[in-house]
């Protein structure tokens, strides 16, 4: 281990702060909020790590990034070595360093978190991945001799990309089929530029292309081609379904058809994928939010992304409306904190009852009701109950619904022998990710429901391992 500082002294160093764009400035532009650590900050932060024997950080990372060892390489100044160390377990470090809910995973279990200041593992992961990118020396692993086996990966989100990467390295012939015109799944159409610059995703995709993965956009599996055809006349030996959770849920309250009511998926897709924020240079329009009042319903990452995007489109007042309390908000801590700094209003314990509109069908407001936390239910969660007589109207021009997604049904509905759950997700076993249909594996949000980038990636890698075994043995 390279750290010259004695452990006692390390504990005296405070966690480094992430340099960021000033809140009021960034709330009006789409440039990335976090600027990233420089070498000096990264060194200082890396030296805080206690190089523990029992690596809680490692155990708490869903893909088992060797946190202690990569941080030690940072201390040694070997940033490319550190990046390569991460890449042994994580093919998208520049992405996960930015979007993992670290406080619930690696950092949440870091031994130093007991003192409230865990090592900033996410910042360091991002630092080495960005360093690697900036010097243009991404250590692409070597490819095994070609096996002549063909695998189709359906969907190009993190699950599909990581599976494709691993399989191509094993020498298989891998084609990724994507319904949209761009590769990346939620990373390109959902998570905004100010949190995850699209160039990063494009670079990672380019790396995969260099490794030999073939990408085909504009192919909707279930419509353009079915899973049975992929396994039949198209000659694929295995299929990995990673179509994500992409079917937006609505509140099912009156007035949801009004102009100005969006699903978060539509709102974010218009901006991220279609660049509606640059209309008319780009052709796709979006509601002109300038000077308008916007409310977002929900409190996950998607809700935070939508509300902060609306500010950047010029909204005068942007609020989060959530029926539970702040404690229950599922979003990453950093996103909530950033949203507050940027001036987002939080209306907790508030439930929408009805959207109100004018005679031309445009949204004018929403009728809300205050809630309080009731007695704990069977699961121990205190569920919200309405407070009598607390109904009131909030005038808004735009409403964005971010209360979650269901599984995208196109593949399931056209593949009769693929078992699904009651909620429309695909059934796959936890270890091998095998579905009920021989030759077909599935993973990511389409199996688990909306989860995280790193879990989707983990699933992709597990699937790659199982697919490789299957291709070699031929045994299902």
């Amino acid at each position, binding site marked *: 281990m390279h750290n010259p500082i004695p452990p006692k002294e390390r504990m005296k160093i405070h966690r480094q702060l992430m340099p960021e764009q000033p809140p009021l400035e960034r709330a009006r532009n789409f440039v990335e909020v976090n600027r990233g650590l420089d070498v000096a900050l990264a060194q200082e932060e890396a030296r805080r790590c206690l190089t523990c024997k029992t690596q809680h950080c490692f155990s708490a990372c869903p893909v088992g990034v060797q946190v202690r060892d990569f941080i030690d390489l940072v201390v040694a100044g070997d940033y490319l070595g550190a990046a390569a160390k991460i890449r042994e377990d994580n093919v998208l470090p520049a992405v996960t360093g930015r979007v993992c809910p670290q406080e619930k995973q690696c950092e949440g279990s870091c031994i130093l978190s007991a003192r409230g200041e865990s090592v900033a593992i996410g910042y360091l992961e991002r630092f080495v991945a960005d360093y690697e990118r900036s010097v243009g020396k991404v250590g692409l692993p070597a490819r095994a001799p070609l096996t002549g086996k063909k695998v189709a990966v359906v969907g190009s989100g993190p699950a599909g990309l990581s599976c494709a990467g691993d399989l191509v390295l094993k020498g298989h012939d891998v084609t990724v089929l994507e319904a949209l015109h761009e590769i990346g799944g939620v990373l390109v159409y959902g998570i905004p530029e100010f949190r995850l610059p699209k160039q990063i995703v494009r670079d990672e995709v380019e790396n995969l292309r260099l490794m030999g993965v073939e990408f085909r956009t504009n192919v*909707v599996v279930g419509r*353009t081609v079915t899973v049975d055809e992929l396994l039949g006349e198209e000659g694929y030996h295995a299929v990995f379904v990673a179509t994500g959770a992409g079917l937006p849920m609505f509140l099912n309250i009156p007035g949801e058809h009004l102009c100005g009511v969006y699903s978060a998926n539509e709102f974010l*897709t218009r901006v991220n994928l*279609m660049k509606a924020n640059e209309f008319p240079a780009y052709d796709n329009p979006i509601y002109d939010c300038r000077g308008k009042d916007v409310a977002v319903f929900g409190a996950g990452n998607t809700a935070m992304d939508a509300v902060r995007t609306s500010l950047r489109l010029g909204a005068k007042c942007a609020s989060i409306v959530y029926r539970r309390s702040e404690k229950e908000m599922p979003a990453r801590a950093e996103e909530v904190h950033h949203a507050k700094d940027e001036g987002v209003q939080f209306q907790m314990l508030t439930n929408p009852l009805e959207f109100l509109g004018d005679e*031309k*069908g445009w949204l004018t407001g929403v009728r809300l009701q205050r809630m309080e936390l009731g007695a704990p239910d069977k699961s121990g969660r205190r569920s919200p109950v309405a407070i009598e007589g607390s109904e009131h109207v909030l005038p808004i021009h735009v409403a964005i619904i971010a209360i979650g997604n269901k599984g995208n049904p196109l593949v399931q509905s056209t593949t009769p022998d693929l078992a699904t759950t009651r909620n429309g997700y695909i059934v796959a076993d936890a270890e091998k990710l095998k579905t009920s249909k021989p030759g077909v594996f599935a993973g990511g949000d389409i199996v688990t429901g909306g989860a995280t980038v790193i879990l989707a990636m983990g699933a992709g890698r597990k699937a790659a391992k199982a697919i490789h075994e299957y291709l070699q043995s031929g045994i299902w």
Partner: protein
Amino acid sequence: MFLIVEARFLAPDVKLLRVQAPLIARKRKAGQFVILRVHDHGERIPLTIADSDPVAGTITIVVQGVGKTTKMLNLKSAGDSICDVVGPLGLPSHVEKFGTVVVIGGGLGTAIAYPTAKAFRQADNHVISIIGGRNRQFVILEEEVRAISNELFVTTDDGSYAEKGFVTDQLAALIAAGRKLDLVLAIGPIPMMRAVAEVTRPHGIKTVVSLNPIMVDGTGMCGGCRVIVGGKPQFACVDGPEFDAHQVDFQILIQRNAMYRDMERKALDQLLQPPAPAVSAGKDAQCPDGDPCRFVEKVPELAGVWKTGA
């Protein structure tokens, strides 16, 4: 890139394009559509597949230039290409032997209804087609429709050709004459589809319409295409685009389709604005030397707009 192998105007600003898209051509069924992006800054717009040739690997679309994207598409000629085409999307038309089927196409709707009419005929139905347009110029695909219909009625609003009146007048006449109609399929402007629904409703004749809400992805991911049918939201791109006309809330569809009107106007004005570079529809459609003549030549009815700089 998707190569255009044939392009010709059927009516003013209504163009037929045959596009190389073998995977879609092989799969497509009557009633399905594609989503395309003309260029890499373009929006995604849905267009019905009017016909396909699985052997040649081509699909046919018929485009009416109503705004920036469709007008740019109509600037394309054979040899040009389209950035992205994805499909076939939506559920195919429900085709079986119903008996006597009336297929109504209003204006461009004729092109959208044609493939399904053809499929009805192939399923042994007695097909009565009623096609109409504002005036003679807007009656399209008459010969194609005649070839697959047992009976054909043509109307023009101004009487400049065939029968003067609306398509609904012909439908009402058939009903009044006591013809037993088993199914009506109506495709065209929303007011026309709504009018057809009102004509058939009192007689309890099953009526199907194809809806045209604003779409983005076409795969059920965004929910932007939701329409209200039987009081419930449905996603037109995956649950439709065809629905029971008597259950559709047409008023909400009209309102939702107007959502971006001001911006669409702005985008179109900019497109029609000299100087020439603004009319570029991607590299391969750029006017030679920025000469706007090609644009005017291809979209003749815009020559006036162009001169006044409207």
